[in-house]
Each structure stands twice: as C-alpha cells, then as structure tokens.
C-alpha cells in the first residue's frame, strides 16, 4: 500500500490538478496515516483541514478508479494489479530479460551453465507479472520467443505456463502457487553467484533484481562451477534444486537389529513355550521384519552405527505365527541363488490376458504365494500362485469345535470346501490404483479413486476397514515391512501415515507441491519416501513427521520408488524414463540409469541387493548391476559432494529383455531370488 500511495502522490504532484482531486488525494493520504506527506501537500496546495472534511469516500474511489483507468488506457491495460510500482511495461521486462540473457551468453564458459539456470525462473516470474498486469498477448510472445532457449525439460512447464492467459487463471493453480510460495532454489558456486550479483547491481535492472530478491534462492558453495551435465542432473523439479541445508539432518538408514534367528531356527520346541498368545487373528499384531539380506546375517552381532534404535518408533510385537514364518523365510533364503553379473536371475512372467486395458496394478506377496490385481472396474482379484487354494475361514459354529491349542490351528480353521485358485474383492467404487500385502499375509490394503483405502482379510475374504481421510483419489498405499503401519499418498498433495487399528492418520506429510504419486517404506520402517508430480523425491521421518531429505533431478512425475536392501540407497523411477539412485546419507544423486523408453512403474532389488530390476511401460525389463554401482560410488565419493559426476549408465546395465507388447506392472524377487514379473497383455 505504501507503493500505491507513492504512485498516486507522484501523479498528484507533478501536474497541477483540480482542487477536488487534491482533496480526495489528501483524504486518502490521511486515511493511510501518512502524516508528513499530508503536511507537505497541505502546505503546497494550501488546503485546510476544513476543506478536507468535506470530501467523502466515494469521491476518493472515483478518483482512484479514474486514475487507474487512465493508466490502463494510456499503457494498454497496465498496472491493474499495481504490484511493482515501476516497470509493468512489457517492453521493460523484455529488455531486462534480453539483457540478462546476453550477460549469461557472454559469460565465461565455466560459469555459463550455472548462470543459465537463473533464466527459467525469471522467465516464469516475468510471465506471471505480465499476466497479472493484463498483458496476455505480450506475455505469450515473450515466452514463445525465449522459451525455446531454455532446457528441454522445461518444455512441459512452459506449456503449462502458456495455458494461463488471464489473471484469474493464476489463482488456484498448482504450478503458480509452487512458483510463488517457495523460492526457486538454484545451486551455484560462489564465483558464479558474485558474478551474477555484480551484473544485477551494475545494470540496475530493477525488475530483475526484484524478482531475484523475491523468488530466487541461491545455494552457494565453494569450489568450481558445475558443468552443463552436472547442472542438468540436479535441476528440473518444480522448485529448482534441493538446498543442501535441506539434507543436513541425520538419517538412520541402517537396518534394525534382527532378532537372533539361530535361537529360532534350531530348537523348534522353544517356540511352544512362548505360545501364550491365543489370539491368532488380531489384525493389528503384525510380525517382525523378514531377514532380507545375507550381509545382515554375517554382521548381525555388531550394531550398525547408522541404524536407528530398535525402539525409535514403536513396532508391533512378534507373534508366534510370525516367528514361524520368519523361520520359514530364513530357511528359504538359505537356498537363495546368489546373483551377480555372471549369474543372472530367471524371470517367470505372469501375463494377464483378456483384460482389455482394465488392469491398473498388480502386487505379489512377500512370500510369493499370492498375487493381487486391481482393476478399473473397482474389483480386486487375488490369485494363488502355488497349488495351495485360497480358503475361507469356517463359520463360527464350526470354529468352536476346533482345539485351540492345536499346533496346526491356522490350517484347521480354514474351510477346505471353499478352496479356489482365485477370488475377487468387491467394495471400492472407483479404479483400484494399488494393493499392498501385509507382511503377515492375512491382510491386503487397497487404495482407489473413490478416495478410500480399504483393508481386506484373507480369512473371511471381506473388507474389514475403510480408511477415509484423503479427499482426493489415493494413488498409492504401502505396508510397513514390520506390519501395522502403512502409508498412503494422494492427489491432495499429501502423504499420510496410518496404523491398521485407527481410522485417523497418525501423520500427514505436507510439502509436495503437486500430486504425491508413490510412497515407499524404508526397510527399517522409520522413514517414508514419497515421489511426486512436482518431480521431487522426499524422505519423511515417521517419528516426528519431519522432512529429512529432498531430492531433485527428475524431469517428470515419479511413479515408483524402491529402497535398496541395505537401506542406504533409494531408487526412483519416473515418467521421464530414467531411474535415479540416491544416497540417503546425504541426499545425493548416485547414478542415473537411462535405458527405457517409457514410464517406469515398477522396480525391485534382488534379495541380496546385487541387482536392480526395472520394468517399464515400454515392455522392456532391464537388469542393472547395483553392486558395481555402489562399489564405484563408494570408491569415488568423499570428494566434492555438491557436484556429482555420474558414470555412463550403460556400464551398469546387465541385460534388457523385451516382452511381446506386455508392459510391466510389478516385479518381485522371491526369497530364492527368482524374479517374478507381472504384465498386462496389450491387445492392439
């Protein structure tokens, strides 16, 4: 408002006006309590307080509107919003931008790439200002003229930008609010930054300086400026780059200390004495986590310095059935085939036929016995992948007759006559976007376009709970590897943490600027990763809901996430066809794996963590040598962490396997390291 009054004052003083106008002006000044200006004006124009009182508010308003209206006529519709006092003229902006661009072009090659990163946010902000000022035509021309110079990955954003043609469009728009609310982060070497600052000061480009001050944040570091490739890998998200400050908080990426399995495996009777828990179907008592990797067994005696305390977040107690399952899993994993570049896995491919584009997701249970498939017609179909049939629980009368102490109570309570090889859940009222098996194998979660998450029981084959909380379609739901907790994410830009026994979320993770498209639990259950259409991957602490890592580099929405088995790395697959691998210890990019030609919707690490399998909509499965990748990363890290130098991703690619027009929906390594893949046949 000060700028407003300043504007009017200028207008009032320069040309001698009618007295009434002056009076109205004075009244306005008085209203805003600008004492000195008022006195000055009174003296200059010889107006007394008495005269002033005769002026009413209506006159002020008419004066104001006429003044502004004149301005509009005069400058072709300028200054309606009146945000910046000076320079709403499109030509001023364009000249300023052209000057800036010149400066960037002519700067030394080493600084050029870093400096060029400021261009995009400035283009966007100038566009907003022009639109706000009502110059939609010059604004469009401006972007069309300078847009093509910007990096190709900004293309989509520019397209979005040009959709906005009126001031009213600016409201309630993800993209606009993302650019307005948060400062666009640009990482720069100190040298580049000072060069830039000097330029801004020298040229006295106020419009640019204004934008820079308001909407740009420079994250400077000591050292040499980055190359084009280095700039490119980390930029591209809606908010620019991640600030280093964002990723300072310590992340306990290590795995939880495992229970001693030797005691579980050797004396089987030892289990019986603990058998005091006779409540087998309490859904909220999931089991302990599975033994996932070999290195863990070898060093389970030492405690990992990066691991969180095992009681950092309360985890559910392990039940006997869970322990039995664990023993089974352990026994299975002893038969595991070690995978590496010389011994590649076998892949069993499940093709869903006759589906006619109705399949939305597929999921295989941890023990590889069941598969759940979600459909657009809101049904969920569960198949048994083993000869074992899917059975229902016996009726209450029959259950009464069962000996509760029997060892095989779990099989006894199921009704053999109901065995079927596939069953269907009905309940949702919109496409089912994701399913998740509970680690204890008795529950299934599903999320849908109808904004609900449902919990289904494999005992009764019914829906047990409906979790309502999200207000918009829920894109993804994942169970914690320890059970009990689960995470979901939605169109409403939030990710949420739930427990199976409460219909309210425990945490709501806000911060993403667009849809949250996927979530994933860290193997130690202490963290949740989320990937979003704002092209960032974020890591949230379950304990306090804090954002602990923010990783930028994708150029498209992120549709799949996978934690490495060691817990330190996170792979994210995006619609930009790349898979990026992040080191969670510093939030740093480790590698960019580019081979696919379609969106990546599923990834899986082998059980020993040596191989990363990636499946895309381009009907290709790729296998990557993850152990080599991490080895090379660890051997060369320790150097400068702000400008990662990426190796050629081709060196990590082991093989790629095409399918017959069947895009990949899910990948899953069995405990013995057989890779299971699911795809829906695309009928042409």
């Amino acid at each position: 408002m000060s700028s407003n009054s300043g504007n009017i004052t200028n207008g009032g003083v320069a040309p001698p006006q009618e007295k009434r106008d002056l009076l109205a002006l004075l009244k306005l000044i008085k209203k805003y309590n600008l004492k000195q200006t008022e006195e000055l004006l009174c003296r200059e124009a010889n107006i007394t307080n008495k005269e002033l009182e005769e002026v009413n508010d209506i006159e002020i308003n008419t004066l104001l509107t006429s003044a502004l209206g004149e301005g509009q006529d005069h400058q072709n519709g300028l200054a309606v919003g009146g945000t910046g006092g000076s320079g709403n003229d499109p030509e001023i902006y364009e000249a300023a931008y052209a000057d800036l661009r010149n400066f960037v072009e002519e700067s030394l090659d080493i600084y050029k790439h870093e400096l060029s990163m400021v261009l995009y946010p400035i283009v966007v902000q100038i566009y907003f200002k022009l639109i706000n000022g009502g110059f939609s035509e010059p604004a469009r021309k401006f972007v069309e003229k300078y847009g093509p110079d910007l990096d190709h990955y900004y293309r989509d954003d520019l397209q979005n930008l040009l959709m906005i043609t009126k001031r009213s469009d600016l409201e309630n728009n993800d993209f606009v609010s993302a650019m307005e609310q948060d400062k666009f982060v640009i990482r720069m070497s100190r040298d580049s930054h000072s060069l830039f600052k000097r330029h801004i000061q020298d040229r006295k480009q106020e419009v640019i300086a204004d934008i820079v001050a308001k909407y740009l944040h420079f994250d400077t570091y000591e050292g040499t400026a980055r190359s084009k490739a280095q700039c490119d890998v980390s930029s591209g998200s809606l908010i620019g780059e991640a600030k280093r400050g964002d990723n300072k908080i310590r992340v306990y990426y290590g795995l939880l200390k495992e229970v001693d399995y030797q005691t579980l495996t050797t004396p089987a009777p030892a289990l019986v004495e603990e058998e005091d828990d006779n409540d087998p179907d309490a859904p909220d008592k999931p089991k302990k986590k599975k033994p996932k990797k070999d290195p863990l067994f070898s060093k389970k005696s030492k405690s990992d310095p990066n691991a969180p305390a095992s009681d950092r977040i309360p985890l559910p107690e392990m039940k006997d059935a869970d322990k039995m399952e664990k023993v089974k899993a352990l026994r299975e994993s002893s038969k595991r085939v070690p995978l590496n570049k010389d011994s590649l896995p076998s892949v069993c491919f499940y093709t869903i036929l006759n589906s006619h584009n109705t399949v939305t997701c597929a999921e295989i249970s941890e023990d590889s016995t069941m598969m759940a498939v979600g459909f657009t017609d809101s049904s969920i179909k569960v198949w048994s992948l083993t000869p074992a049939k899917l059975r229902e629980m016996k009726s209450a009368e029959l259950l009464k007759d069962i000996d509760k102490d029997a060892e095989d109570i779990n099989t006894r309570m199921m009704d053999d006559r109901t065995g079927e090889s596939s069953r269907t859940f009905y309940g949702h009222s919109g496409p089912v976007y994701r399913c998740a098996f509970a680690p204890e194998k008795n529950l299934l979660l599903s999320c849908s376009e109808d904004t609900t998450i449902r919990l289904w029981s494999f005992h009764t084959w019914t829906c047990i709970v409906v979790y309502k909380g999200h207000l918009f379609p829920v894109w993804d739901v994942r169970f914690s590897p320890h059970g009990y907790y689960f995470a979901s994410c939605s169109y409403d830009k939030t990710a949420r943490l739930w427990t199976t026994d409460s219909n309210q979320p425990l945490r709501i993770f806000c911060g993403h600027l667009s849809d949250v498209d996927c979530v994933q639990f860290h193997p130690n259950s202490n963290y949740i990763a989320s990937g979003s259409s704002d092209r960032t991957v974020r890591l949230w602490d379950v304990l306090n809901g804090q954002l602990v890592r923010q990783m930028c580099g994708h150029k498209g929405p992120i549709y799949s996430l996978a934690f490495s088995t060691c817990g330190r790395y996170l792979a994210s697959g995006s619609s930009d066809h790349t898979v990026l691998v992040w080191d969670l210890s510093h939030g740093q990019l480790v590698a960019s794996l580019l081979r696919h030609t379609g969106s990546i919707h599923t990834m899986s690490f082998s059980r020993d963590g040596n191989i990363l399998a990636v499946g895309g909509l381009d009907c290709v499965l790729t296998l990557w040598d993850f152990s080599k990748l991490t080895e090379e990363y660890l051997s060369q890290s320790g150097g400068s962490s702000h400008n990662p130098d990426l190796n050629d991703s081709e060196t990590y690619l082991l093989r790629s396997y095409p399918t017959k027009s069947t895009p990949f929906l899910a990948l899953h390594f069995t405990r013995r390291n057989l890779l299971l893949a699911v795809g829906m046949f695309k009928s042409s």
Partner: protein
Amino acid sequence: MSINTGRVAGDMLYGTTLSAESMKVIAESIGVGSLPDDAAKELAEDVSFKIKRIVQDAAKFMHHSKRERLLLSDIDQALKVRNIEPQYGFTANDFVPFRFASGGGRELHFIEEKEMDLNDIVQSGAPKVPLDITLRSHWLVVDGIQPTIPENPPPLSKDSQALESVNPVVKLEQGVTKDAAGKPATGKIHKLRNVETVHVKQLATHELSVEQQLYYKEITEACVGSDEPRRGEALQSLASDPGLHEMLPRMCTFIAEGVKVNVVQNNLALLIYLMRMVRALLDNPSLYLEKYLHELIPSVTTCIVSKQLCMRPELDNHWALRDFASRLMAMICKNFNTSTNNLQTRVTRIFSKALQNDKTHLSSLYGAIAGLTEMGAEVVKVFIIPRLKFISERIEPLLLGNQMQSNTDKTAAGHIRAMLQKCCPPVLKQIRRSPDYTEEYRNDYGFMGPALCQAVIKARNAPPSTTTPTPSSISNAPITSAAATASTVGRPQVTQINSSVVTAIPQLRAIQHPSQPPQKFVIVSQASTQQAQQQQQQVQHIQQHTQQQQVAAIHQRPATPQSVLLTTQLNGSGGSGGSVTNSLLNISDRASVDSNSIIIETEEIRAPPELDDLSHLE
C-alpha cells in the same frame, strides 16, 4: 524475426485455443443467437484453459492406470475430481439420440427404445461370453538368457533383420553392445568381452549353441524323414518359432543343397519335402528371408522347370510339385519384390524365355507355364497368350495320337493343355470381344483354339465369380497329395462320375469307408493314357468346366486289397488332384485338404509299388 520465432514456438508447443467462431457456433446450437465478439473471445480463452486443465488431470489418471493411451474414463475421473459432472453417454458405440416430449407443463427427455421380437433373440442364441481374465505364466528369462519361445518376442525383430540385410555396417556397430540386448550368448563369451578392450570382429554370431545344433538336426531330420506326424510338428515349428533367424542360413543352405542333390537323383518325395520346408519358412512371421532368396529362388525354380524331377516321369505326379513350387514362387515374388531387386520381373523373364525356346523340354514348358500362371492374369496376358499358337503347335502332334510318341511326352502335353485351358479362358474372355468363333480361335491359337473357344463361351455365360482364377491362395493339399504319389500318373480320372461334382459330394462322402482314416492316403489313378485321351476328346467341354470330370479310370496296375482315396481338386486351381499314396498327408494339412478336395473312395487301390525311397512312407 517475429515470424521466425513464432514458427519455432509453434514447433515447440503451444497456445492452441478454441476459436471465437467455434464458440459462436456452439452458442447458436444451444439457442444463444448473437453472441458478442468479446464474449466469444473471452469464452474461447476460458474454455480452452479449462479443457487443457482437465486433460492434464486426465493424463494423471491415465498414468496411474499404467496406460499410454487416454481413455474416456480418464476424462470422466478428471471431471469428477474437479467436482464437475462427468460426461455420460460417450461409452456407447452408437449415437443414442434423445427424444423430447412436453405436455402439461412438463418436459421430458427420453431415449427411444425399439420394439424387439423376443423370438429373434431366443433363436439367435446367446452371444459369445467374453473371455474371462486369466493368468498365464511363461519363462521370460532363464538364467539370464531369454528363451526363444512363442511367448517371447523374436530375439531379432524382423525390422532389424531387414536393416541388417540392407546395411551390414549396422551389425558391426551393434557387435559391441549386442550381448546386453538379451541375445542368447554363453556366459563365457560374456565374461571375456568384459575383460577385453580390443574388439575383434565377432564370429560368435554364426555360432549355434548346442541346443540350436540339436534343434537343427532334429528339424532337418524330421522334415525329410519318414515319420509324417513328426514332419508335421517340425514344419509347424519352422512356421511359428520366433528364434530361428540364427539358423536360417543353415536351413536355406540345407534346402538349396538338398534340391541340388535330389534333382540329380530324381527323388521327387524329398524335393516335395524340401519345398514344404520353404513354405513353412515363408509362413514364419518373425523371419526376414530376403537375405536368403538367392538360395531359395534357384531351388524353387528348379522344382518348377527342371526337365526331370522323378524317376518315372510318365507315372509320377511331379506336376503337383511344379504347381506347388509355382505357388511358392508367386508368394516369394509377392512378399519380397521391391523396385530394387525387381524379383518378379527377373523370375518372369526366366519363365518366358523357356516359352520362347522351341527346344524346351515339355516338362519344363509346363513348369514355365505354371510359374507364369501363378503370377496373375496380367502376366498370362502378356507372356502366355501370344505364345499359345506356338505351344499348340508343339503339343498338337503329341496329343493327336501319333503312335511313335512316347507316353511321357503325351502326358506332358496333356498337362500343358489342361493348364492352358485353365488359365487362359478368364484372360481371353477379357481381351477378346464377344462373339466367339471357333475358327477365329483356331487361327489365333492353333490346335488349342476350339477348346479355348468353348471355355471362353462357357466363362462368359457363367457367373463371374466362378471363372476368376485364384492363383494367390496357396494350399498344401495338392502338394501333399502329390508328394504322396511319386509313383502315379497324370491327373485324377474319376470313373463314371458324369454328373457335376458338387452333387456327387454327399454320395462320395457317404460311401467313404469308415475304417479307413481319410488322411491315410490319397490316390492317384490315371487313365491309361490312350483311352483316356480319346475319352477326353469326347468330353472336352466338360473337362473345361471342371477338370475332375475327366472320365475314365482304367487302372492299369494290379489292384491291391486296399481301398483308394481319390482326391480331386474342387476348385481346379491346383491342377493336381492327383493320385496319392498314403501317409504323406500330414495332420496340419488336413483342414486344407478337406476344404479343397473331395475324398472319394473307390474299390481299388494300388500300393506305390516301385518306390524305393518312398517305400518307408507306408
């Protein structure tokens, strides 16, 4: 400059908006007569913006459904998310018009429903139930190697095979990265390559794995062996397996060498088997044969025009082989002819040269005519019709019963005449004007004239569809039957069937011996030539209509206590319908045999007596 940048920008993206005119049209359609320009412009911008946002949202739904194609349901969901009523009614295939009625101050929109006759619905039977969603599993990869099974895509797509054959440089460049592309390679090679930095030109691409060698052995043995069901499987495998391209050069060499050897040895059966292999390879959708045409075409041509293809030309039905090979050739020309290789032109030239030469052996002459016939009507018109008189002169003395002539030549002449009578009338019908005089025909075409004249008249009177030749359709029936014969003579001669064949079918079927598996054999009975000749002349007009009706099966050979199945060609295109012995008709060919031939049982049969190499086929 502004124009320039505008174009660049246009390439890049943007800024398509609905025009103000379309707004006005839409406004008019809902009864708003004169929409002011400003309002239309404002509306157009607003609507464009909103539509774009909706489509953008719809794309999110598309992505989460893991599709790459936007569907109507995505738009509906995007509308729903923005609290807009979805657009109903777009899922129906047909336009469903709303009717409007009003009365008593109330308005009603409704869909008009047709009256339907329940009887129709009941009688039409239930529509087919859509297939249920099913799960099917297969091995995509076994120990890092993708097996070449029909469920998996061919290891080398047809396009890249084509590229390779056109531009060999591509292959050399690929060599380095190739093993990453899931090509079957042994682990050893893989390991070595990781270590070595020098890229030696790879020999491995021509190396067959042990499995492939076994497969090759099995397949080739089965294809030329004695076990007919096994051959069927082998040919089926050749026709459908996706991973054959690695051993394709060997297969082609096998065929080419086989033809060379067996032509010299006059081993008709083996030649037929080899041609069936060619056929199977041509049928395989994942193979790109262009690279091997230089081996295949000479082989096929040999089987069409070779002077002698069998031990006893007067008895064996090598004509069927020539017909079958001709059809193969036509198929090859159709599939692979390009403006650069001029395949069809070159092949046609070979055949037409044989026609020009008056020294050409009669069998070769027949082959050349057959080959040209299969190329289509235009080729017949340009190359055969002008030579008709010449051919007539050659066959005339042979057919007109000069006792000095050998049987072989006489048979050949008979076949040539039959072939010409089949292929020429449809063309003649079009190039000659209507009143057909026998004399003119005799003048123009010599000895063949009168018969052709009859045929043309007949063709003019008949409904057009029956007279059009269908050379492109290729069926195994004749060749199998012919392959079976190898020891028979000439064309089918069905005794005493003088009514039309069509009416004869039911009876023929009815008398088929129940204990005799129909595919067990095929016949061939050829009339003793002389008598047949005479009779043929008597009933020439019938013959032209359907060749099967040639009269007179007087079996020369001693009858065996088996029954004979006589196959005759219904559509007459095969021209063989020949006598056939058993067991060569494989299972996969059954369908085509049934559709193309009638199986007739007669009371007599001949075993294929003097067939050394075919004796195992019993």
